[in-house]
């Protein structure tokens, strides 16, 4: 039935012999209007039935979410290596993630270095082992504190920022606007951001470790009259190649997680402005949770390597 000028499509005029009144029209949100009293059998076939849950509403929702993550993950790798590549946007995002996080990373790293040194000194002094302080700081900062502190700061700053930005783009139809302009929003928004965090967070991790060691060295130099050169020699004395690799590996994983979680939550935001806040909040919480899980796993995996 194709529409022409002045044709009346009043449904009550079609095929009187095949009409049935479906139950859901009587009980669901569509009020039974005069036109809806009768509806053809063919039409009822395409109207979906009331939803039944496989397990329960919450379990089903969780499983759907897991499936969405899987789809998002596979789409990310599928689209990452297909043209067009938005290099300019990738560089822009590297700037947004990297350079704009520097002041916070600098401040936090420096304070962590000083505070951890101050906290560790009394315990080492008890055993007359304060000369081990530079080595302790080197191991602690390069293997654990640098990556973890950077990842937690970026989870709070970057992941929430991405979640809120993409979430607001989603609810204000900016993502749909890209789609109808024949631009793939997933490639332009998601792939560039996830690669930017994956590439830049390892750099930030080493920058944070450097600043934390600087803070620590200033504290040690002031209190113990240890020279800077001596501090750094001792700090790196106990750092092996595998420790360094662990740090690099961890920071790449953290970077990917932070970008991915922020993009996933933002890209799938709904419920208007409330959804934007929810996406940003969930991005932080989930990214931090996953960072801790990944920390435990990488430590365990690299300890196995060390045992060989």
């Amino acid at each position, binding site marked *: 039935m194709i529409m022409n000028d002045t044709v009346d499509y009043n449904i009550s005029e079609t095929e009187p012999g095949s009409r049935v009144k479906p139950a859901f029209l009587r009980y669901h949100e569509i009020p039974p209007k005069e036109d809806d009293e009768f509806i053809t059998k063919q039409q009822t076939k395409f*109207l979906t039935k009331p939803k039944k849950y496989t397990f329960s509403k919450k379990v089903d929702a969780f499983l759907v979410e897991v499936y969405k993550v899987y789809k998002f993950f596979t789409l990310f790798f599928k689209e990452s290596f297909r043209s067009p590549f938005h290099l300019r946007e990738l560089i822009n995002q590297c700037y947004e993630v990297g350079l704009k996080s520097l002041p916070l990373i600098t401040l936090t790293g420096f304070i962590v270095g000083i505070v951890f040194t101050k906290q560790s000194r009394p315990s080492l002094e008890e055993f007359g082992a304060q000369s081990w302080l530079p080595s302790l700081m080197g191991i602690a900062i390069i293997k654990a504190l640098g990556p973890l502190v950077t990842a937690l700061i970026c989870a709070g700053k970057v992941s929430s920022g991405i979640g809120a930005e993409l979430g607001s783009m989603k609810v204000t139809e900016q993502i749909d606007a890209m789609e109808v302009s024949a631009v793939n929003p997933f490639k332009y928004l998601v792939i560039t951001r996830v690669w930017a965090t994956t590439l830049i967070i390892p750099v930030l991790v080493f920058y944070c470790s450097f600043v934390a060691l600087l803070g620590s060295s200033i504290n040690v130099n002031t209190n113990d009259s240890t020279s800077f050169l001596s501090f750094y020699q001792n700090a790196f004395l106990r750092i092996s190649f595998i420790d360094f690799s662990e740090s690099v590996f961890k920071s790449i994983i953290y970077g990917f997680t932070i970008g991915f979680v922020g993009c996933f939550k933002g890209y799938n935001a709904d419920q208007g402005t409330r959804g934007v806040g929810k996406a940003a909040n969930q991005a932080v919480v989930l990214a931090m949770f996953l960072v801790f899980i990944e920390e435990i796993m990488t430590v365990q995996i690299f300890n196995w390597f060390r045992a060989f």
Partner: protein
Amino acid sequence: MEKLKHHVINRDEPVISIKNLYKSFDNLHVLKGVDFVLHEGENVAVLGKSGTGKSVLIKIIVGLLKPDNGEVFALGKQVDKLSRKELDQLRLQIGFSFQSSALYDGMNIYQNLAFPLVMNRMGLSKKEIGVAVENIADAVGLKSKLKQMPSDLSGGQRKRIGIARTLILNPKIMLYDEPTAGLDPITSSEIIKLINDVQHQFNTSSIIITHDLTCAKNTSDRIAMLYEGRFVKVGTFQDVFDDDNQVLKDFYNYNFTQE
């Protein structure tokens, strides 16, 4: 209000053809067997209350939503059967003006207008893109606003830029989603004039989703009244509102008593 409707309609050439279209969201049955044809050079206003599926209909046409059942043809191609690449090719020929304008917050007006050209890599130089942006901004009367951010513009100006951003790709079909919603009568009349100007300058065929009868009357060749997921009446403004159907009478009376 200045009326500019002298459209040359080619009734042999449907640019959009919809057959038996169904769409539901969980238990909410939005479209229940919609049939529709848009001819070349024609403007059709789709009227209906909020939540009747007007926006869903044009989102299906442009491939933003998938139909549950039915066929949607745009420029001779079945929209839901196209690959991503084919769909993108089709989208270059369909302009979509969003209710919220959907301007990119992080870009200024120039970047917003240039975005579709830059991203679709049409082989244009920076200078050519600049000229295209200036021309299209001039066509909507906002050439002086190119350096401003979307947040600096009024609602009407944002709508104009939203329309200009779709026109920059020179589309054959324009889909307007509530172009006058939330605007004062003067700005509404400016948008109505712009829709008619677009039709004349760019020779587009358009679907205008609205619940504003003034807009529908002054922009469209035909009116299609969507009610409870189906078109209850399609015809000229006079035909539709001379009908005895109570739904149409209520809609007409409500609109004009509100104004």
